[in-house]
């Protein structure tokens, strides 16, 4: 089963290495990983799709949360969230060959059906851009393959939660201060 993890990570050296390192060390296979800066340039958002047994999903989130550079780790697999992937596809359809005229027209029609955009076109063929959920992209690839030789680059999943979840951060610690017994007793009596 796949798990979609959304991480908010400090832009510190080695942060990506820590995240991937823990996933690999714990035996979770990374299906895709995207990372880019957020509105706050000191932070990055990662969307990671891992292949993991369903009952281990909470464990993956806990392992991510243990990393000091990870500010927030969320499981988007079943949570209200939107997940999309971008695909760039080059399909070969040479314009000069007579019978291919029809093929080129058909490709453009199919692209329209899938909501794909033509981002480059030459006598060799087209480069198409399409976004969607992975199933849709798989289908698009299947269709395009029927028209000729293709080459594909997928971005990997990006995901955004539909709910705003409050970011819980550790407060600054004053050095040398220890939490007093009184505070503890306060909790006990309260």
């Amino acid at each position, binding site marked *: 089963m796949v798990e979609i993890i959304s991480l908010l990570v400090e832009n510190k050296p080695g942060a990506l290495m820590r995240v991937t*390192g823990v996933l690999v060390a714990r035996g979770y296979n990374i299906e895709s990983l995207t990372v880019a800066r957020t509105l706050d340039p000191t932070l990055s958002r990662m969307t990671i799709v891992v292949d993991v047994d369903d009952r281990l999903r909470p464990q993956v989130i806990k392992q991510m949360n243990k990393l*000091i550079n990870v500010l927030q780790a969320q499981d988007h697999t079943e949570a209200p969230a939107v997940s999309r992937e971008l695909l760039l596809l080059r399909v070969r359809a040479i314009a000069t060959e007579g019978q291919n005229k029809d093929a080129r027209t058909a490709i453009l029609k199919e692209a329209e059906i899938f909501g794909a955009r033509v981002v480059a076109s030459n006598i060799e063929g087209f480069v198409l851009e399409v976004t969607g959920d992975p199933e849709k992209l798989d289908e698009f690839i299947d269709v395009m393959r029927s028209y000729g030789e293709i080459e594909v680059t997928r971005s990997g999943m990006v995901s955004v939660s539909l709910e705003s979840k409050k970011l819980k*951060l550790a407060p600054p610690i004053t050095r040398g201060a220890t939490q007093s017994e009184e505070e503890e007793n306060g909790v006990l009596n309260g």
Partner: protein
Amino acid sequence: MSTAMANKLMSGSEVLLECLVQEGVEVIFGYPGGVTLPLYDAMYDHPIRHILVRHEANAAFAAQGYARSTGKTGVCCATSGPGATNLVTGLVDAMMDSIPMVALTGQVTSKLIGTDAFQEADTFGITRSATKHNFLVKKIEDLPQILHEAFYIAKSGRPGPVLVDIPKDVFQAQGHYQPVNSIHLPGYKFVVDGHNGQIRRAAQMIWEAERPYIYAGGGILHGDASEELVETVDIVDCPVVNTLMGLGAVPANHPRFISMPGMHGSYAANMGMYNADLLIALGTRFDDRVTGRLAAFAPFAKVIHVDIDPSEISKIRHADLPIVGDVKRILKRLNFYLRETKDEMAPKTEPSRAAWRTQIKEWMEEHPYDRPVSVDEIKPQHLMTEIDRISGGNAIVCTDVGQHQMWAAQLIRFNKPRLWINSGGLGSMGFGMPSAMGAQVANPNQLVFSISGDGGFQMSLPELATIVSNGLPIKIIVMNNGYLGMVRQWQELFYNNRLSQVTLDTFPKADLLAAAYGFKGRTIEHPRDLRSALEEAVAEPGPFLLDVRVTPFENVYPMVPAGGAINEMVLGQPSPAPAGVK
């Protein structure tokens, strides 16, 4: 921190040493090298104590011995490249056993990083998975903040090793020590106070249980919660076991203390675990060496699991009642609620608990640990029994890994926390003697035993020089059976006794070896010499090397074979072992 200090222009090395002073560091275990030359130059006239080990791997083990015996953060130091890679085993070891440690490593000059410079290694990358967190310092201005963060991370939450990699030019740069008053690591969240409702429910579950069983691990020691744990045991009046990492958490002479559970745990400890209807797991992580086959582990029990690390909850065994937080605080409140509800709730289940205590006692009497004594050869168990007699539950005992470790854990009693020091999770051979150095440095007036097998002892052999140089009066006991005993035991039991590469047929003469280093040593082979030799070792004001030739083919029992159920222990030798040495 005086303003004079803050204004004074200092080198990066001096800033680093000032940070260590501010953190209360008493001693560094280390080994110098090319890129740490500026640091060692600054140490030349700095009051901080540095113990020069003979191999960097042992610096990390010694720092652990210091940390494990005191609870303070241990510090080790090595140069770039080979120095840093030699620390790695000790880092992973500290990681597995949650030991607070800060490792300082030199790195090649910043502008040479990535050029395959002399003695360059990607320490930051290599130690990523070996540490709780690691840092690469880019400029002197960052040094104080990073170092104080390193010490904070190492000691707080679930403790662990933190490595700080420092390029040579940062040591050499000139700058100021800026006092660091605040540490802000927004992503470093850990819960301290457990959930109050959960703690109340735990108290209720405990009183409702008929066969409650406390399973306490190393977390009790890290959390300094031994006193609170004993109180819990006394209030509930139920059996308690300490894992290999937790020995000493409950004094061995406590009437409700059974022993260690697991692969080589006692019969009663494992039978109790199997038959309990409530497992109160405290600061412990259901290690495979404790649980055996998981499906058959405590099959009738509900589980209360207290741990500061949320990722340990339900990692191995589902927790019916998880409580995340600091075990000391949680136990304090649990004890409060247990007392509050005792009169009302306890009487109903007390008859069952009384029967449970009787049952445990019967199991303890039925199959205590085997303590064979022979008239013509020294049984390893006899050796441990004699060390236990001398220790009386009060000596620090550091061990290596293998048969001797298991016999020591079974037969030597610990009446206080932090006396029993061994590599539990990683199981690193060569851990014993260097960790004893750290423990003896931290506890100069305490009796410290280093117990190793003849295998592990030879892995840490170079440290004899460190022990002598620093006048550490460690009693080095080698349980010498001429084999890698634990591997041999498994080859005998599970590989048709085909003894492959486990024979250690060469061992130096202890008296000559010790004399070569300038201290006393002795070899004994006969049981009549055992007591007097141990007494001689302890009476010696300096270190003493005692090579004890024991029965070579003795096996550790009880034993839960790998993948076996904990209630199906092999209690003794199945059949005579014919030797088939190759």
